[in-house]
C-alpha cells in the first residue's frame, strides 16, 4: 500500500492548490510504533504528513460530518469499509454526495495490533511495513511476519476491500476475497448451548470500563444524545453493574443493526481488547440471511429496519 501514498499526496496537493476542497481528512504517522492518527490537512505543504499503512484501522467516515464546511467540499481518503460508511451517511442524510470528494484506497487489510503485541514479551519499539512483510522490533528481538498472518479478523473476512464509491482511486483495485464460511465466528457461538452463550458474552464484556470508545469510534453513532447519556428517562444505569454493561453493549449493537459495515473501528478503539463485534456480527449475518442486505453498498436503499416491505419476514409476531 505504500505505493499509493505518493498518489494520495499528489491528488490532495492538487485538490487543495486548486481550491477544489477546503480540507483533506486522512491519516498521519503516529507518535508510537504501530500507531496512526486521523488528521485534517488544509494546506498543500502539509500533505506530506499524510500516510496510509496497515495501522490505519479507524474509520474516517466518523470524522466527516463534524467538519463539513458551509460551502464547498472536503476530501476524505476511504478504504472499502470507510466508503461503505460514507454511503450509509449519505443514505441517512448526514452528508450529501456533493459535499465530498472521495479518494478511494483499495485495501489489503489492517493489522491486529494486539495479535502482534502478543508475539512479544516486551514492548514493541519499531514497526516497519514493506508490502506484505512486517518487521517488528523490541529490545529483546526482531521479528519478520507476513501481514496476512496478523490481519484483524474483520479484514480477514472482508469482501469489500475496494471502495464502493469514489471520485478518484489512489491505486488499482485489489482482488476481492471469497469466503467459504463468512460467519464462522457467529456459527461458533451459535453452536453453544444458551448457558454457554450467556457465559461467553459475560466473559467478553467483563473488563469493559464504559469509556464508550467503541461507540465514539463508530461512524454510525452520531445521535446528538446517546441513550446511555439520556437522563429523563434514564434507560440504563451508569455504574459498573454487569446488568448495565450488558444493556449498553446489547443496545449499542442493536442500534447498528442493518447499518454495520464491520469496519472494525469499535474493536480497534477498545482499550480493553473486547471483541464487541461478537454482537454486531450476529446482526450482520441476520441482515444478510433475512433481508439479503449488506450495509453501505447501495446509495438508493435505506437499511432494512428503516423500511417496511410486505416481503419482510414476520414470523416473530405472534
Amino acid at each position, binding site marked *: 500500500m505504500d505505493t499509493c501514498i505518493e498518489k494520495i499526496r499528489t491528488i490532495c496537493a492538487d485538490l487543495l492548490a486548486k481550491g477544489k476542497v477546503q480540507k483533506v481528512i486522512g491519516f498521519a504517522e503516529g507518535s508510537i510504533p504501530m500507531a496512526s492518527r486521523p488528521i485534517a490537512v488544509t494546506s498543500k505543504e502539509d500533505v506530506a504528513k499524510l500516510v496510509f499503512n496497515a495501522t490505519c484501522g*479507524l474509520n474516517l467516515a*466518523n470524522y466527516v460530518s463534524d467538519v463539513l464546511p458551509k460551502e464547498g467540499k472536503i476530501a476524505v481518503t476511504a478504504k472499502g469499509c470507510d466508503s461503505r460508511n460514507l454511503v450509509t451517511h449519505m443514505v441517512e442524510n448526514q452528508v450529501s454526495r456533493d459535499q465530498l470528494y472521495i479518494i478511494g484506497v483499495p485495501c489489503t487489510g489492517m493489522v491486529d495490533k494486539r495479535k502482534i503485541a502478543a508475539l512479544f514479551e516486551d*514492548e514493541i519499539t519499531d514497526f516497519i511495513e514493506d508490502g506484505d512483510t512486517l518487521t517488528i522490533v523490541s529490545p529483546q528481538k526482531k521479528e519478520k511476519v507476513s501481514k496476512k498472518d496478523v490481519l484483524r479478523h474483520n479484514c480477514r473476512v472482508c469482501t469489500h476491500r475496494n471502495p464502493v464509491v469514489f471520485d478518484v482511486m489512489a491505486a488499482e483495485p485489489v482482488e476481492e476475497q471469497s469466503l467459504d464460511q463468512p460467519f464462522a465466528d457467529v456459527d461458533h457461538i451459535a453452536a453453544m448451548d444458551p448457558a454457554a452463550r450467556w457465559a461467553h458474552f459475560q466473559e467478553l464484556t467483563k*473488563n469493559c470500563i464504559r*469509556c464508550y*470508545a467503541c461507540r465514539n469510534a463508530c461512524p454510525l453513532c452520531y445521535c446528538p444524545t446517546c441513550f446511555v447519556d439520556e437522563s429523563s428517562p434514564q434507560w440504563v444505569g451508569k455504574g459498573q453493574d454487569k446488568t448495565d454493561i450488558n444493556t449498553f453493549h446489547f443496545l449499542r449493537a442493536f442500534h447498528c443493526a442493518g447499518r454495520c459495515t464491520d469496519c472494525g473501528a469499535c474493536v480497534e478503539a477498545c482499550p*480493553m481488547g473486547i471483541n464487541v463485534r461478537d454482537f454486531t456480527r450476529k446482526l450482520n449475518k441476520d441482515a444478510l440471511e433475512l433481508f439479503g442486505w449488506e450495509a453501505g453498498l447501495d446509495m438508493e436503499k435505506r437499511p432494512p429496519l428503516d423500511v417496511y416491505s410486505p416481503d419482510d419476514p414476520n414470523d416473530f409476531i405472534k
Partner: protein
Amino acid sequence: MNFITIDKKDWTTGIDKSRETYQVFGPVQDENGCQIKPLAPDVHPLMDAGVTVMSPKSVLFPQTQKMLTATLDASIEDHHVMKPVKKDDTPRVVLGIRPYDARAILLVKLNFDNPDYQDPYWCEAYAATTFVGLGVNHPGPCDFSTSTGCGPFSEEGLDVLMADLDDRYLAKILTEKGETWAGACGFDTRADAAESQSLFDILRKEAEKNITSVDTDQLSEKSILDLYEAPFWDDVAFSCINCGTCTFVCPTCWCFDIQDETKHKTAVRFRNWDTCMSPLFTHHASGHNPRGSKVQRVRQRFMHKLKYFVDKYDQGIMCVGCGRCVASCPVNIDIREVCTIMNNYESK
C-alpha cells in the same frame, strides 16, 4: 533505611503468609491484558508484568463505589434518611505497584484529603493500604516518568521499593507500614545498606537511559488565558473521538459522578469515575453547556493536567509519565507532544 533481600523461591510462601493479615492486590494477566486486582487466595501476582492497562487507582477509588443507602419504606424508622454504607477498610497490600503509580496516589491525595474536606471513602482506604513497589528495569516506549517528578526507581508514595535482581528481590523498607508488611511475610534477611543503595542507583541510571524526556519547565510561567486562547487546540483535538479512555486509564484522574438508583424500597447513592471528555460532564439542566464542543473538552483535560493543577498546588504537573493514555488512545493523541507545544508556546 533498611534493606532486605527476598529470594524468589521464598516469595510466594511469604506472600501466602501475609494473607493472614492483608488482602493482597497485584498484577494479574487475562486475555484483555494485565491489571492490578484483588488476588484470589490461590493466585499470585505476576510481578514481571509490563505497564498494566488500567492504573491501580481503583484500589482506593473503585470505578463504581457505593456511598450511601436509605430505605424508602415509610413503615421503617429512618426511612428516606441516607446513611453511609459499611466499608471494608481492613489492611491491604498492593504488590508490584510501579513508582509512577505511587506518585499518582500522592497527587490524587491532594484532592481527596485537603484542609477543608476529607473524602472518607478514599482516605480510609488509603490509610489501610501498604504499597510495595517494584522499580522499572525496562521502561517502555511511552514512559516519560523522569519528566514528571518521579522516575523508574522513585520512592515517593511507597512503603517498600523493590528491585528485581533475577533470582531475588532487593527491598528497601521506606516506612513503618513497609516494615510491618515485611514482618508479616517473614522477610527478614538484612542486606548491606550501602551496597544495596548503589545497586539501586545502577539500575535506576540504566533504566533512565531508555526514558524519553519532556520539558515542563515553562508551564508555570505561562498565563492561563494565553494558553487557553492559544490557536493550537483545534489541531490537537481534531482526531479525538471523545471517549473516556485517557481519563479512565490515567492514575491521576480523580473526577467522579454521583448517581442514585432505586430498586423496590432501597435507594442507593454511588459514585462512578467520570470523564471531562463527556459532554454530560458539564451539561447544565437548562441545556447550556460551558464545554459543549470537543475542542473545549480536550483543552480542559490538558489545561487541568498541565496548567491549572500546576498553578493550584505547586506540585508540578498532574501526570506521572506512565504513558498509559498514549498507549491506549485510539487516535494516538500524545500528551508528550501537547505538553511540549504548551511549554514552548509564546503568545503573539
